[in-house]
């Protein structure tokens, strides 16, 4: 081990560079948000945060996030299960399509929904007859949020299930267990932490999505404005205290998510170590 034991000025130079870089690029913006939010005192902050539209925007954000987490959890589990436990033709294509959404610019993600459900689309008259409005309405926001977080959960589960192999499930199946019993008793304990971790990542991204949602939202205050969109509105209206106050809610969520991430990662690693 001795040759990796360092030593010398290089170590400290690199550490100082790292701290400086992350402080300037990551920490400073964070501190700036909080300090601007509280600049006009805690009173002004509370007024901004408890503003009717802020709360409505927060509720819509939570709603879209819950939808995204729910849909992507179901997708994540079933996709991970069928991609890791079975061999079939087209497996590679399937996994490519699942990963595709994150490589697409959020604006383009918004665009494809506009093309699918917008006025010029063939689907529009049908949906209109049924009284369903998708774009510039809540369903569009939910869809866009699902899209941009699409592979977040399956991507966490697949490596864990690949590493675990199929022996245990085969053994359980030979003993006559059904699909759900096998999943609950055999597979689930392995992926528990990875699943939670995926949910945390999915939540983080879903809450913060801006571009795709921006395309699909009608920007109606209190109706189709999510928290990030509402922040944009406030900022462009030069209500900086309001914008930063609303931002501070999301900052708080981000910090919670980072802490959760560290905890879950540690638990997941511990689990792996025990297995070894």
């Amino acid at each position, binding site marked *: 081990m001795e040759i990796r034991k360092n030593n010398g000025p290089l170590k400290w130079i690199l550490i100082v560079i*790292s701290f400086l870089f992350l402080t300037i690029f990551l920490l400073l913006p964070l501190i700036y948000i909080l300090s601007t939010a509280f600049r006009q005192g805690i009173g002004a902050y509370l007024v901004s945060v408890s503003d009717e539209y802020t709360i409505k925007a927060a509720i819509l954000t939570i709603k879209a996030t819950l939808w995204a987490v729910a849909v992507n959890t179901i997708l994540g589990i079933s996709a991970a299960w*069928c991609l890791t436990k079975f061999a079939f033709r087209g497996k590679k294509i399937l996994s490519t399509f699942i990963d595709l959404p994150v490589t697409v610019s*959020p604006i383009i993600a918004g665009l494809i929904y506009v093309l699918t459900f917008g006025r010029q689309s063939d689907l529009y008259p049908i949906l209109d007859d049924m009284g369903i409005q998708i774009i510039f309405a809540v369903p569009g926001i939910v869809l866009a949020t699902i899209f941009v977080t699409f592979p977040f959960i399956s991507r966490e589960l697949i490596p864990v299930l690949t590493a675990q192999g199929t022996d245990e499930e085969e053994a359980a199946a030979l003993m006559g267990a059904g699909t759900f019993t096998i999943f609950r008793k055999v597979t689930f304990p392995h992926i528990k932490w990875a699943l939670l971790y995926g949910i945390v990542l999915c939540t983080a991204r879903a809450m913060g999505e801006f571009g795709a949602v921006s395309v699909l939202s009608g920007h109606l205050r209190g109706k189709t404005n999510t928290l990030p969109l509402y922040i944009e509105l406030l900022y462009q209206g030069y209500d900086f205290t309001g914008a930063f106050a609303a931002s501070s809610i999301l900052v708080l969520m981000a910090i919670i998510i980072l802490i959760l991430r560290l905890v879950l990662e540690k638990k997941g690693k511990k689990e792996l170590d025990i297995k070894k």
Partner: protein
Amino acid sequence: MKRKSIIPGFGISFGLTITILSLVVLIPLCSLVVYAAKLSPSEFLYTVTRPRVLSGYYVSISTAFVASIVNAVMGLILAWVLVRYEFPGKRFLDGIIELPFALPTAVAGISLTHMTTTNGWIGKIFYDAFGIRIAYTRLGITIALIFIGIPFVVRSVQPVLEKIDIQCEEAAFMLGADRKTCFRKVIFPEILPALISGFTLAFARCIGEYGSVVFIAGNTPYETEIAPLLIMAQLQEFDYSAATSIALVMLLIAFVILSINALLQSSVAKRVNGKS
């Protein structure tokens, strides 16, 4: 390819995956393809070769490239520091690297903008001391993109660096190599594929980035107008064919970048795993 498995649940998991994938990803993507096929080639060419659009691509690609280069260098240093050194605050450093994933892009965007205007904390210092403007310039865009791209390189290099067999370094050392030679000849080739992979992911993500950039960019045509913003502008004017044309070129660029990376990675994997 097809192999009968005794594990049950293929039908349900495959069915669910395909259903969700179709609704959220495939059908909208198809509508993009259908819509794109309806575009007349001359109109398409005219749209994407307009000077303003070309300049948009140029701004997006050049700033994304510079930001990703900065992130490649800093990501390498950060990964090195986190893997090889012990120092107080290491866990903290490791934890906040993920901040750009957790913090909504719009929040990061307004914070970075507000901070770097000529009146902001940082912007004032730079403007007064060097006469450099940050917000509303390409420099500002680059800074926002650096923020977004930090985790990509670190998180792809870190695990590879952790896995390098210490015996390889000891072998180089026993053969008389100093630290510099050892890094250049033994460690760097090991992490290079991961470095390239992290760089490409960050690059692709940055080209399509909207939320964090739109505030700091200032959106002056020919100067700081990014390609995703152009799509957004066309959408707001309900000019869907122009928006689709610009988006198609962006998708093509992303596809090319990611394909080059995939080819590179597979040729490296071939060499290392000996399947050629």
